[in-house]
């Protein structure tokens, strides 16, 4: 039997022998998003996990505000903030093992940072560079992906390849509510299910694709309901409840690792800031809606639950904030240094074997740069 062979895979059979199909019921998400904080079950969460989540949430929020500030100073070309979505980002960044892979979408630099990336590296693309900034193999984080949903089949292919090689590796792929409308979303989920690949898909449903609200994006009961159409479980979770997101993801990762195949998780959250610094969100949504979501803030939710269990006090909050300020200060300092770029690098990595055409063009640019330098020299 190959890894491609599905247990109980369906093949039409004529009556009276209709072959039993997979039962749909266990694949369907609950009607209400799963929530942990503020429920009785919250008492069971490990204090250590809560403390880590809290620290990263606070740092994550600060990372977001700092990055946005850097756009105003011209230090970032553009920044899509994940303010309000830190619970998803942090849970995604913490839930994987070292050997696992994270496939971020363009908004998910925070998840990559939580996973261990240097923030300056994580922001390289958004700073205005063409390259990923980091070696994807170093932290097993795929390059930031701008064409929406195209990273999802990559995650499936990688997870499948790892399984073929006998490696115990899970891929976690992030996508937005808008991205679920792309054909690549569909094809990726289908390949994952057919190949039984160890992938977890996390949809951060933040209510908008730039200006387009969810109601114009889908008519589905929930995005998690899409799972059943691929034969994988769909899970709906409160995306502002860091503990709940972490638990649901951890369970899905466990399942994938154990050979149970892929899972689709929809985390319901909200994009508090505009789409990016270049966007004007007042054009398409009322402030009151934003305010209502601010009242369901992921940090506040977690702090309340931790204080209830006496796992956090003012001192703990202060410590987390200080750590966040150090992160911000460091980011500020280092992003304020101009990166050193060599224009000749434009030709360096296009091909493993550089074509003679590119050699000619590189020589042309080299000559131009030399002439420029000589001119500048004369000017002195």
């Amino acid at each position, binding site marked *: 039997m190959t890894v491609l062979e599905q247990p109980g895979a369906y093949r039409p059979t004529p009556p009276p022998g209709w072959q039993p199909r997979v039962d749909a019921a266990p694949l369907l998400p609950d009607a209400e998003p799963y929530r942990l904080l503020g429920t009785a079950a919250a008492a069971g969460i490990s204090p250590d996990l809560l403390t880590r989540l809290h620290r990263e949430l606070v740092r994550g929020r600060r990372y977001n505000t700092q990055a946005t500030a850097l756009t105003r100073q011209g230090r970032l070309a553009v920044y899509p903030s994940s303010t309000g979505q830190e619970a998803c980002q942090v849970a995604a960044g913490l839930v994987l093992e070292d050997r696992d892979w994270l496939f971020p979408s363009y908004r998910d630099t925070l998840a990559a940072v939580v996973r261990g990336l240097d923030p300056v590296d994580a922001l390289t693309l958004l700073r205005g560079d063409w390259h990923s900034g980091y070696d994807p193999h170093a932290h097993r984080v795929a390059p930031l992906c701008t064409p929406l949903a195209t990273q999802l089949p990559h995650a499936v292919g990688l997870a499948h390849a790892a399984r073929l090689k006998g490696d115990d590796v899970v891929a976690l792929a992030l996508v937005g509510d808008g991205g679920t*409308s792309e054909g690549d979303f569909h094809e990726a989920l289908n390949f994952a299910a057919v190949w039984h690949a160890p992938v977890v898909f996390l949809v951060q449903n933040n209510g908008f694709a730039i200006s387009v609200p969810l109601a114009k994006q889908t008519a589905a009961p929930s995005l998690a309901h899409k799972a059943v159409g691929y034969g994988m479980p769909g899970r709906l979770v409160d995306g502002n409840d860091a503990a709940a997101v972490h638990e649901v993801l951890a369970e899905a990762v466990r399942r994938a690792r154990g050979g149970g195949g892929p899972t689709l998780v929809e985390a319901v959250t909200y994009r508090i800031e505009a789409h990016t610094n*270049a966007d004007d969100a007042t054009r398409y949504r009322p402030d009151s809606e934003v305010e209502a979501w601010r009242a369901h803030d992921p940090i506040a939710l977690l702090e309340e639950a931790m204080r209830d269990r006496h796992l956090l006090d003012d001192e703990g909050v202060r410590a987390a904030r200080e750590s966040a300020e150090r992160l911000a200060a460091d980011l500020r300092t280092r992003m304020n240094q101009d990166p050193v770029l060599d224009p000749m690098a434009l030709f360096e990595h296009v091909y493993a074997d550089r074509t003679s055409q590119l050699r000619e063009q590189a020589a042309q640019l080299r000559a131009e740069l030399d002439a420029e330098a000589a001119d500048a020299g004369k000017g002195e």
Partner: protein
Amino acid sequence: MTTAVGVDTARKPATMAQALGRALRDAMAADPSVHVLGEDVGTLGGVFRITDGLAEEFGENRCTDTPLAEAGILGTAVGMAMYGLRPVVEMQFDAFAYPSFEQLISHVSRMRNRTRGAMPMPITVRVPYGGGIGGVEHHSDSSEIYYMATPGLHVVAPATVADAYGLLRAAIASDDPVIFLEPKRLYWSKADWSADAPEQVPPIGRAVVRRPGGGGRRGATLISYGPSVPVCLEAAEAARAEGWDLEVVDLRSLVPFDDETVCASVRRTGRAVVVHESTGFGGPGGEIAARVTERCFHHLEAPVLRVAGFDIPYPPPMLERHHLPGVDRVLDAVARLQWESEWTEGSAV
């Protein structure tokens, strides 16, 4: 689109973006079958605000925010066209049109042919294209060759405010599918223009001499379109100092291609440089240089040269100036048009 006689409408500075928006508005007002659709085109008015106000004026059924799926957008536009509508599709950025290529190549470009004219595809696909705006990866592609090489499509690229309006109106009115390439970095370029009495511009398929010149022994033709036209004009101005007299031809449309205007200029000047932002290898310049050479071979004093982007993925904002064909590179190419041989051999004029 005719200018009302006697109406002396004051011409004021307008941006290309404004002219494009006005063209959409006027087309929708003139023809109820014109529908605009795309990502964020409705409530937001598009990420470049070209469609601003259309949903308000014409309702969401005429200017529609679609789900986020480019193949779906173009595919449903095909169906709308089948039912007699005139869809105007906005692709948010050049590189995000790629998911729609199967619909474009296999259907939009072929449906009229396949149905022997029974099902024309009067679809306009607006593609904000090209670089120079500091965009991150995938936001600055020059993808025109993919469209040019697909029979059945018209491919249009305006370089002026008046053309932006006139060509977009013509594109929407055309019964053929038109890829309308909007040079992003000219969106905020300005010219004196009146929305209420827009200039008449030549139809799609006609090139225009933007700067006459090229007479005498030091003449040459710069052939260009879209965002590179202003570069050529600037280069021509700078070239005067070196004693060159350059004529600048703005193609305006790549398909149909105006051989007549281009070749008339090149036959007169005997030298030509094609300038565009797209990568050079396999890019539009190859076609242009080849066809000009086929038609003007015995008038040429030098090979038709090309100044194009390098054959690399579009670079990051911090390096894009090294990639984009600028005035210096155009002048360098002009300098390589074998002027010496002319002096020594004393042939032309």
